[in-house]
């Protein structure tokens, strides 16, 4: 069964091809195809997960893809271990839920079939990414998910902001991918192979090490920075919210953005072999996390809050991995995938109901949308790390992973506090209180069942998926993603209590500010205008890029344009003018001497041809006669 695991991405691929080629006119058929394909993959993924978890051996199946002699030999293949199985489950589950959800959300969209084709493409690419057994195939899939992301962000390309966001996402992540490629090339130069096994072997035996490995690892991490929206390339993710909300849930919360985390987790051996690189990873992770969380405190767009929350949580995972917390990072990856996609889908449900993204125009929606509200609340509790929901267990592992690095511990707890605060700010502003926009409130309604059922399913997962990490289970979550050797932080009741307390206090503050209105948030904002505006404008990152990168680039371009217009064109024109003169002279010479010779030859040839053309009679029998006559004559002359 494992040896046919490559079929998992093939099903969505087929559905994409069939939709694109055949059924794109029939929206029902297209959606049905896509959902069927991903369902099959979903079932297969679960089957594989149960096989693998009972038998923690790494399975590899590969074949030669490119064999250019001993120096250039690239096999591609798949590798199945606990981490892959976990990723398969995450990807297929969320993809299935999102595709079902989209039936309701995208209902009536003129490019419905194309939407499903793109979703299938994305699913295929993402599944290939997690199944790959080498960096090469992983990179190919990596670019494919980028393409799918671009297509889906800009899905409503009539909107200028959407198509801009698509381009921004694509170009920004490409910057990171450049680092990825350089890292890959360095690794290939260093150990002559790109298979995970081979590279890790080289790192372990010390064939690859020192400053070279550190540089390679940092470049490799560049890919993760781009894909997982870490500082300083995080700017694309909030803009990516221009895409359809289910897409945000699938790609920009649960799966594609964690590809970077997956990359770091998968190649953790490399980072562990390079101290400096690992610390860089950890620092970038915590800085991203802190910054995004603080921005999230003040945003008013429901999806942007969630986007910054995503960036923040990704930073968490990256940090945990950088500190060697393999289990913590991957565990949080999984739980986060479930509750964050739930949050996004819930937000989508709200947007579907009130047709706005601005939380200032919402409020009191709980009475109208019970299911959405409750599932959203569950997810908010989960992300805030409240016992016994999934976020509690995974966040606790992350906190535990920072033990020994006091700075990280403090910052992590601070982020946890902020997370709890802004999530509940969001919840209270959206679902409780009095409706601030009566008109929109009147028209609000609960979403159809195809949208609420996935919410309920994901809510259940958000609650229970953390229980794999229960402290009294043998090895907890690490036995699931068993990578190199069992590595599991002991469960710290003290730490757990502290982080729970932090989460609760964040919720409490939000409760006071936005539910009870004891503290006026606006007064705090006006009392600290500098900080507030900095946060509201996302630390001016986009503006900084505008000033530091894009403006100078324009100036440089204009300079070159001037250079091109005046200097180069002047040269060209001068050359042209000279050419014309020279050409006139040549024409005279040509007409006089060369043509004379050519015409003379032509005249001669024509005369000759006119004489001997009588040999070509055009009669087949004549030719045949000559053939046989020649045969006889040749025989006689032999």
């Amino acid at each position: 069964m494992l040896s046919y695991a490559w079929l998992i991405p093939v099903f969505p691929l087929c559905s994409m091809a069939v939709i694109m080629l055949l059924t794109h006119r029939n929206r029902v058929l297209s959606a049905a195809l896509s959902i069927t394909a991903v369902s099959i993959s979903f079932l297969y993924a679960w089957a594989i997960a149960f096989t693998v978890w009972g038998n923690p051996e790494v399975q590899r199946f590969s074949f030669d893809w490119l064999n250019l002699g001993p120096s250039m030999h690239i096999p591609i293949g798949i590798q199945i271990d606990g981490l892959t199985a976990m990723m398969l489950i995450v990807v297929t589950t969320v993809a299935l839920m999102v595709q079902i959800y989209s039936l309701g959300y995208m209902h009536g969209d003129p490019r419905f079939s194309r939407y499903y084709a793109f979703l299938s493409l994305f699913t295929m690419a993402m599944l290939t990414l997690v199944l790959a057994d080498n960096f090469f195939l992983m990179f190919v899939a990596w670019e494919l998910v980028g393409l799918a992301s671009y297509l889906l962000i800009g899905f409503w390309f009539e909107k200028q902001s959407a198509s801009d966001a698509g381009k921004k996402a694509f170009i920004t992540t490409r910057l990171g991918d450049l680092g990825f490629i350089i890292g890959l090339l360095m690794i290939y130069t260093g150990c002559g192979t790109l298979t995970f096994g081979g590279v890790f072997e080289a790192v372990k035996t010390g064939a690859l090490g020192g400053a070279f490995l550190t540089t390679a690892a940092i470049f490799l991490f560049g890919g993760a920075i781009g894909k997982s929206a870490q500082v300083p390339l995080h700017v694309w993710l909030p803009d990516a919210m221009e895409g359809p909300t289910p897409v945000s849930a699938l790609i920009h919360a649960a799966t594609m953005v964690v590809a970077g985390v997956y990359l770091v987790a998968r190649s953790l051996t490399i980072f562990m072999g390079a101290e400096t690189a690992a610390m860089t990873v950890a620092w970038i992770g915590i800085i991203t996390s802190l910054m995004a969380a603080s921005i999230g405190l003040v945003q008013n767009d429901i999806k942007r809050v969630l986007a910054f929350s995503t960036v923040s949580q990704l930073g968490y995972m990256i940090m945990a991995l950088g500190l060697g917390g393999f289990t913590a990072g991957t565990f949080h990856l999984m739980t986060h995938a479930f509750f964050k996609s739930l949050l996004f889908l819930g937000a989508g449900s709200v947007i579907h109901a009130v047709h706005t993204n601005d939380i200032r125009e919402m409020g009191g929606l709980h009475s109208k949308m019970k299911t959405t509200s409750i599932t959203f609340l569950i997810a908010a509790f989960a992300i805030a790390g409240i016992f016994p929901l999934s976020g509690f267990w995974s966040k606790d592992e992350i906190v535990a992973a920072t033990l020994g690095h006091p700075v990280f511990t403090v910052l992590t707890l601070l982020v946890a506090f902020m997370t709890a605060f802004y999530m509940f700010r969001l919840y209270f502003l959206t679902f409780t209180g009095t409706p601030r926009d009566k008109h929109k409130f009147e028209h609000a309604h609960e979403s159809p069942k195809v949208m609420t059922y996935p919410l309920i399913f994901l809510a259940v997962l958000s609650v229970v998926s953390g229980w794999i990490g229960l402290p009294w289970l043998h090895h907890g979550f690490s036995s699931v993603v068993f990578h190199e050797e069992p590595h599991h932080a002991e469960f710290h009741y003290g730490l757990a209590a502290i982080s729970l307390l932090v989460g609760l206090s964040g919720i409490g503050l939000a409760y006071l500010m936005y539910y009870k209105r004891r503290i006026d948030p606006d007064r705090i904002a006006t009392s600290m205008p500098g900080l507030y505006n900095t946060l509201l404008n996302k630390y001016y990152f986009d503006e900084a890029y505008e000033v530091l990168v894009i403006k100078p680039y324009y100036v440089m371009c204009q300079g070159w344009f001037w250079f091109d217009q005046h200097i180069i064109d002047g040269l060209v024109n001068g050359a042209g003018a000279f050419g014309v003169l020279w050409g006139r002279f040549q024409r005279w010479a040509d007409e006089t001497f060369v043509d004379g010779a050519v015409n003379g030859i032509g005249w001669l040839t024509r005369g000759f041809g006119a004489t001997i053309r009588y040999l070509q009679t055009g009669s087949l029998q004549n030719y045949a006669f000559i053939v046989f006559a020649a045969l006889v004559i040749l025989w006689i002359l032999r």
Partner: protein
Amino acid sequence: MDTISLAFYALAFLIIAAAIFVVTSKNIFHSAIYLILALFGVAGIYVLLQAPFLAAAQVLIYVGAVSMLMIFAIMLTARIADQTIRHTNEQVPTGLLVSLGLLAVIVYSLWQTPFAISSDPMPEGAGGTLGKLLLTQFALPFEIVSVLLLGALIGAVVIAKKDSVRREPEAPMTPLPKSAEKVAG
């Protein structure tokens, strides 16, 4: 003179006479009929050479199909009264010379050549050995010939299809102008 010799000379006479009529007959349809006769004679020669399967195939394919095609082509391109003034071109004397020269050359060389006559027995049965050979040792040529036949079939259809001759579209009937109708009325 034994039976085989008798049969051989009879058949050889038949074939050669028929062949000569094929190439000299003024009426092309007669040529075709003589061709059938000659081909039938060749089938007889095959029987003498202990190749009965081939003889049957010869009759089936040449008489049944190829000659039929010839006759079709003749019927589609000529009429019974078509007694062309000349049925041969001006190459007759030179052609005769070359043919006879060729005959002399071939006959001379084959009488000079010592052939390695083998006295092994022929395999029993009609088509069994042949069939086995076709599907084992000669499988590739066999397949290629099949493809060739298919290609010839399609090619012939394409070539001979009426539509392949691009004809000028006939001028559309222009309706009479109104005034003309009035005048006619």
